[in-house]
């Protein structure tokens, strides 16, 4: 177990500041709208309109409205060819750069699961139905997972190398965690980190085929939970060596103080029921921050509302923490896969900044097998100093990051 002192600086390691952040998700476009949705416990999940869901059990998702997503789209053929995911990353990065216009990253680390998948679908459908392939060069060139990140960097004159992590649903947290370690090691001064994913038919039907998604409301940790709903979005955080940020007078939004990663080799799509994978990720994050579990004030859980995930995560949390408040904000916006960890990092950041507990909506009855202090249905005021955010994914990838309120 980690040390009990509350100084989280490993000997000789640099402290890591978050100096800017941007987000687009079903909760809203930007930090302000996101904060409002969290405080008002809005259910931002609705009927899927992007593709046919005929034949699927689940019919809902957290979607971004195209009219808003594309309203700030630059003119020109190049901009028109971009995938929706590019526009998401552009908007999230644009918001972050509004706070830090001169931020020049040495490296950009972004998580995703499916890149521009819907362009791949368009291409395959046209091929399969022998219909027009006139747009196929656009689909093919804009399908790769790195393209939205490169598009967003180009939109703002950034030319940093991009590492695109595809660790399934843990990707966003892995990206932030790896970026955190890069700065903490002293090898880098400033990085961009985040995640993105856009809804696609293939992925939607895939989760439906596994019966992981639900035809009902998403009820994380509830006794009557029946599964997840998908979502989409993007989030970007600008990370910087804290000393360097202070020297130039940057506004520090929060600190990232720990990161844990684990791989459980139990099954491709199911966690080890013992919760060993999530537990190791959280323990390693605590160890990385050199803090004890009792200083964690809130956990933004992975909380997909599937029977297996919530049971394993609940078991791991209750084994490590003593009645710490827990919520899954996926209940409001759906599970945005590679973006989820990054969006939830920003939700954790907002919780720290504004001193409240984001709600876990659609929660009606506690599961007697999961001993958690769930932040049920409404946001709550709270004194928060340290928060933990979890993400777990297919293939047994587990990731946790710890953030701390910045106190100058």
């Amino acid at each position: 177990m980690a040390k009990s002192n509350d100084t989280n600086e490993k000997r000789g390691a640099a402290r890591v500041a978050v100096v800017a952040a941007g987000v687009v998700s079903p909760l809203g476009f930007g930090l302000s709208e996101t904060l409002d949705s969290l405080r008002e416990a809005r259910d931002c999940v609705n009927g899927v309109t992007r593709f046919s869901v005929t034949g699927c059990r689940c019919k809902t998702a957290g979607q971004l409205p195209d009219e808003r997503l594309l309203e700030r789209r630059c003119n020109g053929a190049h901009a028109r060819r971009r995938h929706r995911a590019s526009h998401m990353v552009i908007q999230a990065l644009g918001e972050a750069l509004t706070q830090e216009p001169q931020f020049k990253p040495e490296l950009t680390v972004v998580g995703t699961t499916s890149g521009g998948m819907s362009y791949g679908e368009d291409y395959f459908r046209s091929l399969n139905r022998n219909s027009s392939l006139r747009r196929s060069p656009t689909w093919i060139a804009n399908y790769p997972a790195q393209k939205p990140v490169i598009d967003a960097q180009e939109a703002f004159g950034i030319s940093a190398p991009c590492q695109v992590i595809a660790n399934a649903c843990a990707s966003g947290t892995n990206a932030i965690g790896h970026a955190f370690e890069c700065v903490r090691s002293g090898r880098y001064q400033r990085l961009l980190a985040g995640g993105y994913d856009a809804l696609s038919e293939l992925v939607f039907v895939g989760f439906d085929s596994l019966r992981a998604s639900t035809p009902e409301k998403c009820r994380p940790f509830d006794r009557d939970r029946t599964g997840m709903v998908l979502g989409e979005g993007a989030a970007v955080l600008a990370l910087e060596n804290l000393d360097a940020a202070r020297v130039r007078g940057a506004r520090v939004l929060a600190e990232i103080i720990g990161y844990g990663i684990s791989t459980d080799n139990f099954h491709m799509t199911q966690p080890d029921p013992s919760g060993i994978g999530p537990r190791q990720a959280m323990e390693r994050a605590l160890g990385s921050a050199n803090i004890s579990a009792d200083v964690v004030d809130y956990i933004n859980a992975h909380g997909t509302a599937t029977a297996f995930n919530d049971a394993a995560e609940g078991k791991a949390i209750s084994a490590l923490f003593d009645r710490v408040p827990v919520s899954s904000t996926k209940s409001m916006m759906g599970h945005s896969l590679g973006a989820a960890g990054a969006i939830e990092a920003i939700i954790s950041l907002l919780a720290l900044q504004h001193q409240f507990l984001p709600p876990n909506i659609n929660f009606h009855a506690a599961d007697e097998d999961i001993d958690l202090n769930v932040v049920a249905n409404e946001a709550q005021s709270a004194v928060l100093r340290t928060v933990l955010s979890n993400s777990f994914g297919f293939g047994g990838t587990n990731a946790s990051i710890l953030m701390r309120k910045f106190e100058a």
Partner: protein
Amino acid sequence: MNLAIAGMGWITPLGSGVDPVWERLLQGEEARAEKITDQFGDQCYSVFHVPESALASSAAHPRLRRASVISRFAAAAGVEALEAAGVKPDSQSAQRIALVFAISNGGVIYTKRFYRDIVETGAQSASPLLFPETVFNAPASHLAAILGITGATYTLVGDSAVGLMAIKMAEDLMTNEALDYCLVVGAEEVDWLLCDAYRRWRLLRLAPPVEPFARIDRGMILSEGAGAILIGRDGPIIIEATQAGGHYRTRAETEGKIKQILYDLSQAKIDFVISSANGTFIDKAECGAVQGIIPNAFVYTAKPALGESVGAAGLWQVILGSQALRCGELPPLLHAEATIPLRISPLRIPVAGARHTIVLSCGVNQQVAGLRLSIR
């Protein structure tokens, strides 16, 4: 911090095993192209497949029973790299090994099959067995399970430069002294759907040969397989410097980006360059950049012999560079015109005494990266 290559593994269309494949390249052998057709039988493509015999000796594992062939390639290469280094992970030591996986197109065969069922028969026919194999990190997950790795596992996605990006990530991970090794694996599988996509993108030729650095870029031939290197703190080949490059916005910018990489990496005398030339527009960019920055270095690319394996390509190049430094010899460059303004050789050529090489990876989808290897 200089890291070293402790072990390597290689699965290619010319067979498996680092030494056997290397020997065949030295002999001037070229993989045998196979014809595949699209599902409608309308279009025929040439590809370099991994022969089934190359996987015959690889261990069967329950995790691979339903896995796509890309996962089998990755497992075979990864296990070979560990064995070459004499590393046998147990429950304790496996925690001190990280896994970084490089991939570009991923499990395209199962992805296509899964989505085809949806398109042709409807969502209700989607297979819950296929879907997990469509995710990018499925091969990495299988390999982690086979090796018992319980710590850091990352899958990186990108174009042909992703292999070197993965090595760069491994270098960053290895600053953590709790890690003894980082296994970096690149893998890819080939399918007619990829051939069709690259053809529509005007990057593919329908039949060999692949002509590197030609005046007219006639395109590449896709191939498949895997490469693995085990990065540790000791070994005969040193990873002296990595350059994560960045991205080019337009094809016209490519040469300038490569020049910057070569400039940064050529602070030591460079004896030869393992190029990523594959018969496309990137050949001219690499040719111009090498001419401009290190004109006296020998240049070699294995893509005429092995094809373009995209996600695996960077790892293959690092294996080639390491073997050339160890053996003091470069294989013959196949199908190259005599008038190419670079130091190339149609015959195997001794580079005895060579100390440094640059591995250069330029992808067709905007990413570039490089690294410098040296021999102790």
